[in-house]
């Protein structure tokens, strides 16, 4: 921390100033986080009356549980699919929006607003369109004799949650890609154009490499997004089913802890999730100095 700035010499005031944040952090962050660590090594009886120390048994149970391993794979596949499909679409749109000479502001506004739509609402919107009784898209699929039923077909359920999650994230990625594109000096593009490079060549040899800090930052953010915030999409569309096909980790923690009341296992799962997030955050902080500017 930079220390040069100290100006006021007041003994009590600084503690009063940080007190609200420190208290909230202690009560709603450190207390629960330590509880999770503590409970993850305990086994509670079904009535919640007594608990015994079981060491790493909860973790061993989890990593030998087929449903959990399946959930881990599902989450991996899900988050990679969401991240890349959303980023590719956003990059295409950002490059195009950066090209237009007129109407740029209107395009931008129209592409940005879906950020305000909650993930759960995104789930409801697409659930409605693909719903077998009321859905328009489901109807047209039926007309084309394609059998759509995401309540039974595991592949279709997975496709739908990926689609809705990626759809919601397009605006976010678009904003950051556009910011990245604005920060590329026009003289570089101009110079390569004079040297005779076509628009496609200019993109792949100059624009795309210069966007790599933005892309890297977005990969981390999107993976974190698809790990946690997509709970709303899954809860609204599939409820983890059919046959655990969309049972992503955060949904499983919720399901086991809230509905299954298996506190020990749920806490251990939380601890594993925490390790994953800390790992991702550390990666992100290593690259934080390359932060993009709009």
């Amino acid at each position, binding site marked *: 921390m930079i220390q040069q700035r100290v100006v006021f010499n007041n003994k009590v005031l600084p503690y009063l100033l940080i007190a609200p944040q420190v208290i909230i952090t202690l009560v709603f962050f450190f207390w629960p986080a330590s509880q999770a660590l503590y409970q993850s090594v305990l086994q509670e009886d079904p009535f919640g009356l007594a608990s015994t120390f079981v060491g790493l048994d909860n973790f061993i149970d989890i990593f030998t549980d087929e449903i959990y391993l399946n959930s881990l794979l599902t989450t991996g596949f899900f988050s990679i699919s969401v991240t890349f499909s959303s980023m590719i679409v956003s990059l295409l749109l950002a490059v195009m929006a950066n090209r237009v000479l007129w109407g740029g502001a209107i395009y931008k506004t129209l592409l940005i607003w879906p950020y305000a739509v909650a993930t759960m609402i995104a789930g409801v919107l697409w659930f409605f369109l693909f719903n077998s009784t009321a859905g328009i898209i489901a109807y047209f699929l039926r007309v084309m004799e394609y059998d759509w039923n995401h309540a039974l077909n595991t592949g279709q359920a997975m496709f739908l949650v990926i689609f809705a999650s990626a759809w919601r994230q397009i605006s976010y990625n678009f904003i950051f890609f556009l910011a990245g594109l604005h920060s590329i000096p026009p003289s570089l593009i101009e110079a390569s154009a004079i040297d005779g490079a076509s628009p496609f060549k200019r993109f792949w040899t100059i624009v795309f490499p210069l966007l790599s800090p933005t892309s890297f930052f977005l990969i981390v953010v999107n993976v*974190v997004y698809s790990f946690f915030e997509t709970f709303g999409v899954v809860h609204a569309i599939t409820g983890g089913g059919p046959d655990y096909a969309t049972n992503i980790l955060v949904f499983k923690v919720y399901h086991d802890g809230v509905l299954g009341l298996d506190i020990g296992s749920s806490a251990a799962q939380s601890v594993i999730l925490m390790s994953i997030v800390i790992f991702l955050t550390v990666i992100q902080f290593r690259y934080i100095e390359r932060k993009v500017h709009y």
Partner: protein
Amino acid sequence: MIHNRPWLSFLTHSILILGILILVFPIYVTFVASTRSVDSILASPMPLWPGMELVKNYLAALAGPSKSVGVSVGQMMLNSLIMALGIALGKITISLMAAYAFVYFNFRFRNLFFWMIFVTLMLPVEVRILPTYEVVAKLGMLNTHVGLILPLIASATATFLFRQFFMTIPNELCEAARVDGAGPYRFFIDILVPMSRTSIAALFVILFIYGWNQYLWPLLITTDEGYYTMLIGIKRMLDVGEGQIEWNLVMASTILAIIPPVFVVVYMQNLFVKGLTETEK
């Protein structure tokens, strides 16, 4: 020089328009459904132009408790608004104060407190959701607005943003204020806070949307219908089991749930983009 390629311009506009259509289409269909009766929504396919029941559906949603949720959408919107404003204003207030202390004061354990707040950046609330639930239950805050708000305020992003900003303010300004006889309170209220107003506004936009769109946390701690937020209410309306979903009311509620945050994004677009790219969430 860069050539003008007409076909490429055409392609550019086509792709952009296609992208916008993909983003707008589900909202448009939802809006159409919110202006129709349940029967016409279920008459597959539902016609893709607005029906005649707009006023009826929205009034029914806003005023009355629906069959599946014993509370009106009006009440749920109020709960969402309280939650969004509480999170935005609460977080901004405690962060401004903490950042002020970190930048302008020297005190024992300053680094310890700094790191304590810093580590909260690491873990989103979804990760520690159940233990947080237990803590809130022990404090008797289930089914309260305070319980909805406080756990989501425990995060360091805003504190860091303000700290960064305060460190860019020249020392001379503070010296001048002191020479003119301003104490720490006066300097904070009359100089620092007004100077930070753009950052405050940008942060407010981001946090308002964040608060309005919370789902997992209110889902856990609200069992009393009187405290349902919009998103929870919509989910309950969809969970009718064997019965027929009241699609017209669900869709009207969905549109009502989208309007406030979209309004904020569109009308404060520059602040929103600034807030988003500066806090990186």
